[in-house]
């Protein structure tokens, strides 16, 4: 194991970097897309159920299928990392739009009315009052999305780009346990670190939740 690590440090490091980019970029994109979508689903009530159902179906498409199928839709090359990023963004949006909507819905209407009465315009009220109150719920969803993205990236190795997943396929082809183990351990560690980071951010930006 140690020998494998020292001999292949460069490959592993590259795979890890690729893994981080492929997993976290979609979280960023997904978050930016999901917040307005979630807001719309709350603002226009009739949108909520169809939106949730659509995302439910999107979420049930296997990642492998999405990875290989997106090139056909987007016209990208099969080996382009764009496919992985877009596919994971779809999953992130599917997951987060719902949590954003549920989080915004959980805001006490009395608070919203108070903010309106104080002269908050809709946009300022959203960013200054509603979103911060919904933040614990939204960040809980973000944790799930981030962790599952990190574990899903490796499936991309089946089509040739998958960060640490390439260690899995290599180990599998050579019938060699070390790369697979290293890949799993690094992937789990990465997920744990990302999860911890979000928890710390949440503690820092929502001090009022600790008072309760």
């Amino acid at each position, binding site marked *: 194991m140690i020998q494998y690590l020292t001999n292949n440090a460069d490959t592993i490091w590259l795979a890890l970097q690729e893994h981080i980019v492929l997993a976290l970029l979609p979280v960023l994109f997904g978050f930016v897309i999901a917040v307005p979508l979630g807001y719309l689903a709350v603002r226009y009530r009739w949108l909520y159920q169809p939106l949730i159902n659509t995302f*439910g179906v999107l979420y049930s498409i296997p990642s*492998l299928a999405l990875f290989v199928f997106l090139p056909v839709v987007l016209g990208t090359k099969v080996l382009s990392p764009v496919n992985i990023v877009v596919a994971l963004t779809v999953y992130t949006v599917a997951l987060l739009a719902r949590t954003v909507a549920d989080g915004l819905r959980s805001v006490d209407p009395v608070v919203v009315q108070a903010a309106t009465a104080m002269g908050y315009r809709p946009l300022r009220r959203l960013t200054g009052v509603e979103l911060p109150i919904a933040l614990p719920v939204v960040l809980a969803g973000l944790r799930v999305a981030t962790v599952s993205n990190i574990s899903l990236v490796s499936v991309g190795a089946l089509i040739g780009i998958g960060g640490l997943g390439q260690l899995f396929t290599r180990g599998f082809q050579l019938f060699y346990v070390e790369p*697979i183990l290293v890949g799993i351990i690094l992937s789990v560690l990465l997920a744990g670190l990302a999860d911890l980071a979000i928890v710390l951010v949440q503690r820092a930006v929502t001090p009022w939740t600790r008072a309760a």
Partner: protein
Amino acid sequence: MNFTYLLDPAHWEFGAAGGIPQLILSHLGYTVLALLIGAVIALPVGLYIGHTGRGSFLAINAGNAGRSLPTLGLLMLMVTLLGLGLLPVLIALTVLVVPPILTSAYAGMRSLDQRVIDAARGMGMRPWQVLTRVELPMALPVLFGGFRSAALQVVATATVAASVGLGGLGRLLIDGLAVNDYSRVLAGAIVVAVLAVLVDLFLASIQRWIVSPGLKGTS
């Protein structure tokens, strides 16, 4: 978009090796087995932790820990260690379903109104009766939610079994990709997504059937 593979009747011939019906059956086979084994492991543990409150830390964090384990890596590790067969697939998929079932069993038991349990005890129910007649039925909606999301995940993830040479609907994806036959890949993606929706609808109807009518107003 090219639907020729999906719509070709030859690929739907029943019992034909590699035909879509046979792939669906093996896919469902992996799914059902993994869910059953996972439930047998996770339910008692989750209910026990929820009932006693001991080990809550484990139940809460099991969910995230389980999600962070890459199923593909686990599957390939198991195949490398144990050789090809049903066992490595079942281990990898079971590891996937245990956390959501465990967490939801725990959450379901925790969500109960303590007064109802006290009332049941006050009526003279024995601990076992309290568990089976009061706590379990009332925890069922939450528990079933976890079970359904576990089922959804397995149906989608069981496709990776094909990457180590086994069956299931992943065959359409892997083989289609290998020979650049996108209509086959598309067929695989559609069939898996439809299967996932059907499995969820099926479980939803079971849920409606077994959840006590007294609970439906609140759940």
